[in-house]
C-alpha cells in the first residue's frame, strides 16, 4: 500500500477506528437512496434559485423606488399655470377684470399706444389667483 510501510502504526489506526458492520451496511445500502433523495433536493434547489432570480430584479427595483428621495421642484420651476379667459373692461387706461372669487383686479395706468382708453373684451389671465 505504501512505500514506507509501518504496519504497526497503520494497523493500530485501523484497529482503533474499526467500524461496526451494521453501520457499514447502512452506509452502503443508504448511499443509493440518498443519491436519489439528493437529486430531488437539488432539483428543488435549482427551481428555487430560478424563482429567486426572477423575483429578485423586481424586488430590487421596488426597493430602489421606495428608497428614492422625493423630488420637490424649486419654486418657479413647477408646471405652467393654467390660462383662464375672463371678461374684462378697460376704463380710462385701467384694466378691470372681475375674478371668479368675487374680487376685482385692476391694473394698468399709463396709456400705451394701441390700447383704447375705454372698451371691453376677453382678458387672458395667467398666474396664481390672489
Amino acid at each position, binding site marked *: 500500500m505504501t512505500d514506507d510501510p509501518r504496519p504497526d502504526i*497503520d494497523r493500530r*489506526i*485501523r484497529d482503533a*477506528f474499526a*467500524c*461496526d458492520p451494521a453501520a457499514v451496511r447502512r452506509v452502503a445500502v443508504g*448511499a443509493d437512496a440518498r443519491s436519489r433523495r439528493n437529486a430531488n433536493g437539488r432539483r428543488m434547489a435549482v427551481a428555487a434559485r430560478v424563482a429567486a432570480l426572477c423575483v429578485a430584479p423586481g424586488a430590487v427595483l421596488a426597493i430602489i423606488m421606495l428608497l428614492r428621495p422625493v423630488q420637490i421642484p424649486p419654486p418657479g420651476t413647477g408646471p405652467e399655470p393654467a390660462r383662464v379667459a375672463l371678461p374684462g373692461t378697460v376704463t380710462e387706461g385701467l384694466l378691470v377684470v372681475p375674478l371668479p372669487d368675487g374680487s376685482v383686479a385692476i391694473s394698468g395706468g399709463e396709456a400705451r399706444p394701441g390700447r383704447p382708453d375705454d372698451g371691453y373684451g376677453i382678458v387672458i389671465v395667467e398666474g396664481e389667483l390672489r
Partner: protein
Amino acid sequence: MRECDRMSARGSSVIVDLEGTIAELAPRVLRYANARLADPALAEDVAQESLAALVRACRNGGAPESAEAFVFAIARRRAGRAAWRRRLWAPLELAFGASSEAPSPEAQTIAIEEAARLRAALGRLSSRDREALLLVAAGGLSMADAAAALGLKVSAVKMRVSRARARLAAELEVRS
C-alpha cells in the same frame, strides 16, 4: 445502480461494478470519517454522503477515473465541514442538553483506551500530516489516490505520510 453500471462501462470510467465498489469502499470511508470526527453518527452521515456522490456522478455519466480518490476527496471535505459545524454548534448543544444522550454502541467501542490514546497522539500532529496519514492508514488509499484526493503530488504525500508515521510512533512511545 445496474443502469449506472452500464453507463459507466460505456464511458471512460473504470468503474464496472458500482455495487461492489461501494461495498468495498464503505468500511474504509467510514473508518476514515470515524478517525476524523470521533462521532459515529456524524461519520456515518459523511461516509454515506460521499458514496451517494459517487452514485450520483455515475448516474449522470461522469464516473470518475478513480472512485477511491473521488469518494475520499468528498469525504475529506465533508468531514472538515462537519467538524466546523460541530464546533460552531457545540455551545448551543451543551446549553440545550443535546449532547447528553447516552453514547451509542459504536461510540462506546471507539471510546476504548487505545482509540483515545491514538486520537490524542494524532491530535498532536500537524493537520496536513494527520490528513495524509488518515487517508492512507484509515482509508486504505494508495499514495497515488491519496495524492489525487489531497490535490498534491505523490512525492509530497509520501513525505507527509512518512513524517506523520514517525511522529505518531514517537508520540505513542513517549506517552506509553
